[in-house]
């Protein structure tokens, strides 16, 4: 903070409740704004917020930072929240809407990388890539011969759960591999000809694979439950690049352990970084530590977008990416 005030004492204030998940974004922001770091202060949070209440019009946060009704009530001058998370499930959106607080998230800049990872996880599970790589590294190819066969991807019916930016890109990539696409979304999308299913159970019963690309909301929490998993069936595969809480994780683990579904590729979990240890013994799952967005290109784009949004806000320009409340 001392650095920033030496450089330019009149930088606009931006509140940071916790460190950002992306240190380089935080560093770039501190070069352009005066970051009020609640996490660095010896004051308890309520006192810190009250102290700075009148000077805070913008708040910067990441996934893992809940912004509750209570927090918002302590910030009467807040007009903008910039989050580095595409997921908005930790923000009190109805309070933001009520107060006219604008919310800016990364929009579609992560969509390519998340879609790539979803497809990568699916091919890995179906063709047993990580399992076979493990097999080679353990010296088993020499000793035990050929690795067990995988399955053909083409002609698989892939049910996309949530056809937003990410879901649409997943669909396009999988079509290139010969998969047949169906989807479930809040509303039918007029710009695609994939068969729409308004009901997640219908989608599951007609799919060989479910790829979860939707947001976590009250409607989607635990949407993938034991009924959906049963309808997906013994040969079914689940890929989750959305949020862990969209899936009933305990049920998913049980289905996997009992062989009631064929496999899973997971980038997200209910209680990260905790992953149910029973999964570690299974060969038919692929586990990724919530890093679908971690490529240098995506992070560079994110840095530019976050700084750009804050600059636009403070110069009364239109935001570069604003969440539209429905």
């Amino acid at each position: 903070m001392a650095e920033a005030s030496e450089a330019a004492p009149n930088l606009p204030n931006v509140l940071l409740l916790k460190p950002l998940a992306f240190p380089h974004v935080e560093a770039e922001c501190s070069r352009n704004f005066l970051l009020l770091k609640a996490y660095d202060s010896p004051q308890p949070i309520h006192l810190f917020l009250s102290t700075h209440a009148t000077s805070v019009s913008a708040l910067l946060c990441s996934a893992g930072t809940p912004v509750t009704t209570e927090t918002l009530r302590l910030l009467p001058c807040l007009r903008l929240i910039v989050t580095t998370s595409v997921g908005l499930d930790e923000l009190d959106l109805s309070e933001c809407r009520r107060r006219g607080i604008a919310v800016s998230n990364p929009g579609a800049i992560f969509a390519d990388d998340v879609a790539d990872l979803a497809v990568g996880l699916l091919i890995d599970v179906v063709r047993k890539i990580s399992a076979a790589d493990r097999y080679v590294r353990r010296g088993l190819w020499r000793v035990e011969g050929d690795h067990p066969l995988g399955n053909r991807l083409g002609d698989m019916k892939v049910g996309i759960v949530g056809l937003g930016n990410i879901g649409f890109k997943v669909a396009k990539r999988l079509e290139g591999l010969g998969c047949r696409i169906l989807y479930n979304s809040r509303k039918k999308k007029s710009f695609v000809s994939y068969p729409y299913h308004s009901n997640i159970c219908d989608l599951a019963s007609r799919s060989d694979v479910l790829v979860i690309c939707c947001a976590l909301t009250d409607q989607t929490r635990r949407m993938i439950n034991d009924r959906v998993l049963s309808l997906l069936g013994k040969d079914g595969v689940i890929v989750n690049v959305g949020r862990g809480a969209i899936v009933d994780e305990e049920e998913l683990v049980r289905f996997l352990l009992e062989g009631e579904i064929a496999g899973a590729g997971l980038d997200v979990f209910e209680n990260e970084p905790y992953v149910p240890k029973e999964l570690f013994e299974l060969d038919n799952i692929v586990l990724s530590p919530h890093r679908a967005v971690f490529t240098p290109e995506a992070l560079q784009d994110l840095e530019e977008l976050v700084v750009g949004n804050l600059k636009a806000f403070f110069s009364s320009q239109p935001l570069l990416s604003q969440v539209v409340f429905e």
Partner: protein
Amino acid sequence: MESIGVLMACPMNAYLEDELCKRFNLLRFWNFPDTTEFLKRNANSIRAVVGNAAAGADAKLIESLPDLEIVASFSVGLDKIDLAKCKEKGIRVTNTPDVLTDDVADLAIGLMLATLRRIPASDRYVRGGTWKKGDFKLTTRFSGKTVGIIGMGRIGTAIAKRAEAFDCPISYYSRSKKPGIKYTYYPSVVELASNCHILVVACTLTEETRHIVDRKVIDALGPNGFLINIGRGPHVDEPELVSALVEGRLAGAGLDVFENEPHVPEELFKLDNVVLLPHVGSGTVETRRVMADLVLGNLEAHFLGKPLLTPVV
């Protein structure tokens, strides 16, 4: 046809083995450690050899089987068969083209994603139980990267089509430029490697293409470049590749094939930027079944005097 001797070069597929056993007099080459003795006793009854990517029919074997009429390969690659010798002796040769194109192309894309996005390494990290919140390593974006393909045959074309769905610009090297293809052509592998981010080997293995990826090509691909091999191990100078990877002169590699399978250079085992697969390009239940049926179909056609289904020679 139960009296016709069919020699199976190595274990390759249980269904194929069972069916051959039912229809012919199947001799499993790997059950006879003393091959000279085996050939002395059985050579005159063997009229067909069934081979695959690992073992086929070289000149020595062909010479020792005077009644050999057909070599049916459980693969599309023919590098383990002495084609010239077969032609010379009027021995028919068949393989399994087309049926495995999609699977091999799918695996190539899977390997690219697994290598660039370090999927197996991430999986190892999570299973190690040390995932801490906020811990992350950057991996390389796949979408939009230039993919350079060596060989624009059936498999190369299928890989290109899939990579296009990820907005990857495609370029290729081939013995000659292919008319009617919109991808960028380079007349040499070194030029291709200098101008792409991900180099994919997808051509046939012949005398000319052995070590087509050598030190020069590896240098041209460079420290930000990735190599993906779904062709044959001998396409790449393996010791050069290993030292480039260990020394950080290449960004990474996804390898389904090796010069001396099933041996994989152990220096690669500690690297997170490589993905090592035990030759699984066509390794799906569905496709191996279709390949087996094609081998059986070719053998039956031959012994019934009908036209072969997928003849090469």
